[in-house]
């Protein structure tokens, strides 16, 4: 099981073309913790994750994984460095089977480990074992979310970036997924960066929270403290 790494961003300025989305974002996620990244739509949460995983190149700023710089690396290299990004919309490859999707995650492991890791994944997520030969496109929303998280875990990441895992899921499934994430932190000491619109659920499992607004960090505190700050909650988080 991988030990989580420390993930730090420092002064990230990034955007698309002429549009600036992140204006100097600095966060630090301690090893083995869940950091919730919250804020309204358009605040820059997804952009932040995409910048960390290399999909977007920042204009300036640093991104460090246990002290190693990730900036200027292609997404495939960031993934190989140990950052697993589960994108918004899940990123299930619908034309492949469940097992093929999982095997894709295994490709970064040595051949010897693969069989064991896959068996382990099936043990942990029996719902995937049951559906292993089915096309991933036939899975329900909740099952897909589990598939992509399982797939990301198979890459043996040191940090896991989750972009809105609760999106489009029924409340009961949402709490199952959140519970799964909490277990990942507890059992494997994984560092998790959790972007969520559903701030309440995210803060319930997170260790610390960061609130973004219009590309800047407006609050950064221990999760419980954030949840208790009613003014902040109402203003930025909608509850």
């Amino acid at each position, binding site marked *: 099981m991988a030990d989580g790494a420390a993930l730090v961003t420092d002064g990230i300025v990034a955007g*698309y*073309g002429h549009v600036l989305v992140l204006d100097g974002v600095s966060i630090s996620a301690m090893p083995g913790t869940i950091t919730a990244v919250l804020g309204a*739509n*358009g*605040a*820059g*949460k*997804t*952009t932040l994750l995409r910048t960390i995983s290399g999909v*977007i190149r920042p204009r300036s700023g640093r991104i460090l994984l246990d002290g190693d710089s990730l900036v200027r690396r292609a997404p495939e290299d960031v993934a190989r460095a140990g950052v697993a990004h589960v994108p918004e919309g899940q990123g299930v490859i619908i034309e492949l089977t469940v097992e093929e999707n999982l095997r894709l995650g295994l490709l970064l492991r040595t051949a010897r480990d693969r069989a064991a890791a896959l068996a382990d994944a099936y043990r942990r997520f029996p719902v995937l074992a049951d559906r292993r030969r089915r096309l991933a496109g036939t899975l329900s929303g909740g099952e897909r979310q589990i598939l992509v998280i399982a797939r990301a875990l198979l890459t043996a990441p040191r940090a896991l970036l989750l972009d809105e895992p609760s999106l489009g899921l029924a409340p009961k499934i949402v709490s199952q997924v959140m519970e799964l994430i909490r277990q990942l932190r507890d059992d494997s000491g994984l560092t998790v960066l959790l972007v969520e619109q559903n701030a309440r659920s995210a803060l319930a499992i997170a260790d610390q929270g960061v609130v973004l607004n219009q590309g800047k960090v407006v609050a950064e505190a221990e999760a419980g403290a954030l949840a208790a700050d009613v003014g902040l909650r109402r203003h930025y988080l909608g509850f």
Partner: protein
Amino acid sequence: MTLLRHVLTALVAGVVLFLLATRLSAYRDYQMAEIAAYVVAVAGLTVLIGISGQISIGQGAFMAVGAYATALILQHQAAWPIWLVLIVATLATALAGAIVGIAAARLRGPYLAGVTLMLAVALPSVAEAYQSVLGGDQGLPVAATVPGFLGVSFPLTRWQAWLGIAAALVVLVLLANLMRSGIGRNWRAIRDDEVAASLAGLNVARLKVLAFIVSAACAGLGGALFGVVTTIASPGAFTLTLSIGLLTAAVIGGLGSLAGAIWGSLLLVLVPSYLSNVASSHGLSSAASSSVPIAAYGLVLIAVMLAFPGGIQGALRRLLGPTAPAATTPLSALRRHASASDHKEESKT
């Protein structure tokens, strides 16, 4: 008053070019006529690709239709005035364009290119299949002579040049007005986003077919002129290389730009023989040197696509700033077909 402006510009240009034709040698007049024929065909093609967003690699095939139609008409109606012959040939080609356009209306980019490519490749065999009517490999003669009212000793090439210039100017004025009209706007709309356009109530299929008809008609007229100028309509004159040459001319000039069509046609006529000569003088056999322009087309297409998506007109615009005539379509404005899952870079945060 755009129409007036266009007509006046055309009249002035016409007078200048007519005078020029009287000063140039017979060979240069011949080249002017050739260039004019290509201008007509390339202009139609550049409107089709740049304005309506449909690709055709078969423009040469439509030129052939125009040339053969002209030959056949003159065979049976030798007394018809040339303008009538040209109009009928153009209409015949427009009909062919309608047929292809209707079949093609449902096709998107790569498929449409493939069908038109097939047209261009299959064409020579049509001429050979109908040997008795179409003359097979040898082709048919185009017996167009200088009309009586110009006088007995009027040089053939000068008349051909005048005819070409007049036809090209008429076509350019018509296309320019069409591009600025409501139809032109609708074409651009379907080019940029077909789905949005149809949701906005535009009859996409009809507009696409119309664009094809216009483009084919231009090719037909160009081919008819070409037949008149070369006095023959044969399969060897309308090869795949020609179709690709026309495409190259449109691309170099800037897709969607009529001025670019002129540039491109100039290059299309003047450069190949220059290149061949250079090649021969460097010791290449004649067969090899005639391949040099062909390789050059390819290189140019690739280079222009990669470096200058806006063609010559686009490059001019960048150099001269907003004062340069702006009718070019930067290719980035053409509708992106890229599969949605592959290119989500630009989506919301």
